[in-house]
Every structure is written in C-alpha cells, then in structure tokens.
C-alpha cells in the first residue's frame, strides 16, 4: 500500500501534505534567520515594482511560489518581507535545494532587483480570518 507512484493524480493523504508544508515553513524559518544577514531593505538596490511583478509571472516564479508569492506545496512564500537581498539573489543563482537555477543570462541583476521590489511591495495578509480559527 505504499508503492504507488506519488504524483499529481494520486491523491496524497492530508497528513502528508501537512508535513510537506510544515517542512517548507521550517526550512524557511531557518534560512531567513541566517545570522549576520543585513535586513533586505537596507541593502537592496532600488527596483521597479511593476516590472518585477511582470517578470515574476513571465519568468515562471509564480509556478512554484504562487502568483502573489504566497507559497504553496511546490515552493515557499517569498514575500512580503523577503529574505535579505544578498541571500535572495544568491539563492536564485545557486539554489541548494529543488529550485531550478536562474543565471544572470536568464534573469539580470536589474531584473532581480525588480522582483525584489515587487516582493517588498506585497501587502501584509489579513489578520484574524475566521475560517482559520477552527
């Protein structure tokens, strides 16, 4: 009962999904709190939020991170409050996990700054959502 191929059409149990998401959340916590990292806003180059939003979609970031960078089961949440810009750009160029690499040939440094600006501009999520209280 354990040999079935785990792909999209095979329904995975809810508990398994919880772990998948929990792991993403946990890993993010660890990576976001890299000691000595400077807060992003201080070191990030100025970027074009509108262009960043456009590229986030057209370069495929949304595929794994969601259209509002909210995260899902294929990739973690990226914003608002993204990881410091240095960590952000380093990760995109040389990811250590499952994320495919985006070299500067694909996303220029300027474009990265634009994406970063878009992530910073995202609104904070609503608080006290009744549906999440049960």
């Amino acid at each position, binding site marked *: *009962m*354990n*040999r*079935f*191929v785990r*792909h*999209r*059409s*095979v*329904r*995975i*149990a*809810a*508990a*398994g*999904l*919880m*772990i998948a*998401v*929990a792991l993403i*959340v*946990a890993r993010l*916590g660890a990576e976001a709190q890299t000691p000595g990292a400077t807060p992003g806003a201080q070191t990030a180059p100025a970027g074009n939020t509108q262009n960043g939003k456009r590229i986030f*979609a*057209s*370069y*495929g970031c*949304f*595929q*794994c991170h*969601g*259209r*509002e*960078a*909210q*995260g*899902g*089961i*294929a*990739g973690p*949440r990226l914003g608002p409050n993204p990881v410091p810009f240095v960590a952000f750009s380093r990760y995109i160029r040389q*990811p250590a*996990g*499952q994320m*495919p*690499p*985006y*070299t500067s*040939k*694909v*996303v220029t440094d300027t474009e990265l700054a634009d994406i970063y600006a878009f992530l910073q501009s995202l609104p904070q*999520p*609503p*608080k006290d*959502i009744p*549906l*999440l209280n*049960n």
Partner: protein
Amino acid sequence: MRNGKGSMNRRGFLKGAAVGAAAGAAALVAPRVGVPGSLASAAASAALPEPVRLTPAQTAELQARETAPLPPEQESLTVSDPGSDFMVDVLKTLNFEYIAANPASSARGLHESLDSYGGNKNPEWLTCCHEVIALNIANGYYAVEGRPMAVFTFVPAGLHNSLTAISGAYGANTPSYILVANIADAEQRRAQQDWGGHSMTDPAAIARPLLKWDDNPPALQHFAESAVRAYKIAMTEPRGPVLLVVDASLAELPIPDRSKLSIPKLTLTSPPAADPAAVAEVAKLLVAAENPLILAGDFARDEEGMKLMVELAETLQAPVQGGGRGMPNRHPLSGGGSVPSADVILGFNRGSMFTDLYRSTDQQLKTSVRRTRPVAKVITISADDLLLHGNYQHVGRFAEVDLSLTGDPQATLPSLIEACKKLITSDRRRVLEARGKKIAAETARRREELLTYCTYGWDASPISQPRLAMETWDVVKRKDWALVSRGHPLWNADKFYRRMGAAGGGGVGGALPISIGAALAHRKHGRLCVNFNPDGDMMFVPGALWSATHHRIPLLIIMENNRAYHQEVMHLQRIANRRQRGQDIAHRGASGTTITDPNIDFAQLARSMGAYAEGPITDPKDLRPALLRAVERVEKGEVALLDTVVQPR
C-alpha cells in the same frame, strides 16, 4: 450437448404445425419460414383470402420435409440453462455489490445472465464509458469499502484500455477483480467479428506483468473454484489484482449437469504478522530510543488499524508522520519529529524508505545525501517483498536499513504494542510522557505556522489552494463528510473513513473515477463526499461523470482548475533554466503544457451529463454561496461540480 433440457427446437414447432395440417390444409400457412421453393409460395399464398389447395403430392412432400432431420443450427435455437447462469451463482456467493463494465458482444452471455437471471443485483451493473473508468471506479470503491468490486472487460481492446488502472491497482495493492471475456473455441467464434475483435490465445498475457494471479477455466466447475480462489488470492496480503477469463462458449452453452457442480466456500487468509523474535528486538530499540520517529505509509485496513497506530504512538509517546487514514491528523503526536533528529526510525509500510532517509535534488547533477544521524537505527515493517513484479520499479531506490521485518503492518501492531508495554518501566514511562508533551507542543506550533502560512494570498484571484480548502471545510465540517481525493492538512480527519486508503489510478485520469467509486461505497452510509479534482485529470476521462449521475452517486467535485498540466509547466521551466534560456517559457505558455485557448468550461461539461454545476469561479468571495448551493444538491443525491480557478499549486 447442444440440446438443453426443455429447449424449444424448431422440429418441435413444425410437429405442432403438422398436427394442425391434419385438421385442415389451411393450417399449413403457419410455418412459412424455412419452407422452400414452390411449396413456400403455395403456403404463402395460403395466407391470402383465397386459400390454395395443395395437391396430395405437395402435401406429402411437405410432410416429408417436416419430419426430415434438420441441420444442427436449426435444431437448438434456445437454451434454458446457460453456463453463465451458474457463473452468476458463483459471483453471488462472493457478495459483489457491483460490477463495473462497458458492454461487449463476447461478454453477452454473462451480461444477460447478470441482468435477467441475477436480477441486476449483487452485483449490479455499473455502466462505464471506458474500461479504464470501470477499473478505476472499482479501485476507488475498494479504497473505501475494503473489498473488491467486480470489473468486466472484453479482449483485446477492453483489457488494453484498462491497463493503466490495473497498473495503479498493482502499485497500490488493490485487489481488483477482473473478469475478461474470450472465445477460445474456433467453432464458437463468429467468423466475421470474433477472430480479431474478441478472441485471444492467452488473454491474461496482456496484463500478466501486473497481476497477482490469473486463470483461464475451461469448464464450469473449474470456473467456480478459480473464481473463489481468485478472490482469496486478491485479498491475501499483500493484496493485488487478479484476472479470470470467462470463456464465451462456457457462458453461452448449456450447463451439462448442474447436480455435478458445486461452489466452494470462500475462506479468506489471515494476514501474516512479523516474526515475534524480530518484533521483540524492534520493541527494545523503540522503548530505549530518545527520539524515535514512526514514518507510516497507508497501512490501515480498518478502524482497528487506526486505533492500533494511536496506541503504539501513545505507548511510546513517539511522533508519527504520515499514516494516511490510519492516523488522525490532529492527534498531538501526528506530524511531529524529524528524520535528521531521530535516533530510531520505524518505517511502517513505507516502501524502501529511500525518499525518507535521503535528501535528493532534481538538479543537473542528481545528488542524494543521507540525512539520518550516524547513530540512527532504521527499521522497516512491510509485506512488500512478498509481491513484486520485475518489470515495474515501484520498489524505489534501495536504502540501507538495520532491521527489516516482513509482515503485514497492521497484523504486526498488536504484538509490537504488547512487546513495548512489557519493556516500559514506570521510570521510563515518566520520561516518555515528558517527551510526549514536547512533541504535542511542537505539533501545535507547526499547526499555527501552517495557519499563518495560509493567510498569505488569502484574497488572491485565481483562488489560493488553502482558501479553497478552508472555504469548503467550513461548509462541510458539521456534516458527516468523507474525502474522496487529496485534502488539506487543516481539515480534521478524526475518523477512519474521512480519508480513503491508497488508490492508484496508474496516472493522470485516475482521480475522477476513483473518487466516484469511493463515493459509491460511501453512499449507503449517507456521507457527504468531496473530491478536489485537477483539470488535466478530468479531461482524460470526463465520461466518468456520466456514470456518477446515471447511477445517482452523490458527489461534490471541486475543480483544482489551474488551466494547465502544471506539473509539466514546472518541469519545462526547470530544464530550460538549466540550459539558461528559461525566461519566456511561462510568458508564452510552453507548448503542450497549458490548457487554455479555449479555456474549458467545466461547468457546461458537467451539466451536459446531468450534474449540477457552477463556474468558472475566480473570486474567492463567490466560493461560499456556490458551495452552499452545491452541497444542498449533493445532499439531495446529485452530483455537483464547481469549476474553481485556482493558483497553480
């Protein structure tokens, strides 16, 4: 053998006519068919107002022909005790509720017996628009009911069509019970249709690499024994699909002597528990462990399995990850712990465990790094090795473990719990209880994190997957609900039946029919069944919807419509990035991966097959009222589909 008892043959009919002829020549009008030559026209004209008088010679000739021997095909035109009636008797003893099938002429003997002789009850015929739907409806039914539904296909085409679902059954240890029609005897084949279209030398050969067992019974007694044996073998752990050939001649010809036939009693085999000495060894390791972790696959056959897993977890105060319906997801020990921190890891029906024990990345250079502590001991308990077919690689990559027990996990739980309890002193108990409290705090924290995670993108359009899940949860949570697809970790799956067991559709296209079969099993309990169904999956076999509406199987279908084969979208992006050219893939929509232009109107699709449907719904605010309307319909016994347009994942 051709002359069945009480069959009305042509000669008997003509004799009756001949008696009539003696009473008056005009009676000769009756047997018009088959009366040749001039006599025929004479007899035919006898039906006219002016009766024709036959000459004595003509009368004599006619009478001579009537009493002459007839060719065999005219001799036996009816049968009163066909073999397939006995086959139905056999199937009834196996207590099948349903038989899922698409009709075919080589199966007509059994089909008619099921319908007339069997009264289309136990089993009742489920009309399926494709054989892969039939197989997967049966797979889904088993995943809830715990016993098989019969499936019927013909060969070769029907069985070919169903192969994907049989591979799913093999992979998920589903005991699919497949009957296939064949016509072995050349003389019994219709020359035009049956040679290429309905007959094979060895029908099971098509599916044999996936079957646990098959047989091709040449006689009815053999059929009875093999039918019972097939059921028994399919249900013996580890379970798997079986196939029985139903020979059309056997089905259509009369039973030679019913008094000589008997149907053996079905006795199911008890599942094999692991070796007690090895179980004692495992208990020692688990009780002594500081940070044990139970990684469970789908192992629970019934409510008892869930109770036992909870008992093991609580006895050890150890976290359980996974476990499917065998572990309530809101139990304080559910979802805690981690592989890198564990010192003893118990893999419970978890396959090779390679994916648990190693961290692998899908980059240009594929790497796998073991993520267990050097001191960690890894134990596996499963019956997997008892049923493997070489051509399929479900085994997973080989992973080194320290103790490997062959045994059915659920059947092994009682002795394992017992052995652990024996070893736990009161001092040890206090330590374990303290650990349990820590794990409970950790799982509560993880749940809080998950809740926060879900708030991001809450108002997004297309709708975020957590929003869709929680809007639905809010509408169903006070009802007696059951998930017949993947669900969301925030739902409270407190009972065994809330989730279904492992069901493999064999690929994309499995989810919809599996959910329908599962909903059918839930129907007699009046549960509200919910299926979250991806768009690409639905387009493989949309005809399954019709089986659901036709057979009045109440089901709520909520589309995960991301208008893409999204998994493949991500793969193309991944590969393009490696080649440093990925920037416009998503922009232009990589060829072959999007399901747009035109967008599919799933609501209209569902309505065309008699379902209630709404959509496309893109604004999350529209969800709740639509859900309320849809649930109302489902509670009245209907199929309702909401075409909800969602974030990619």
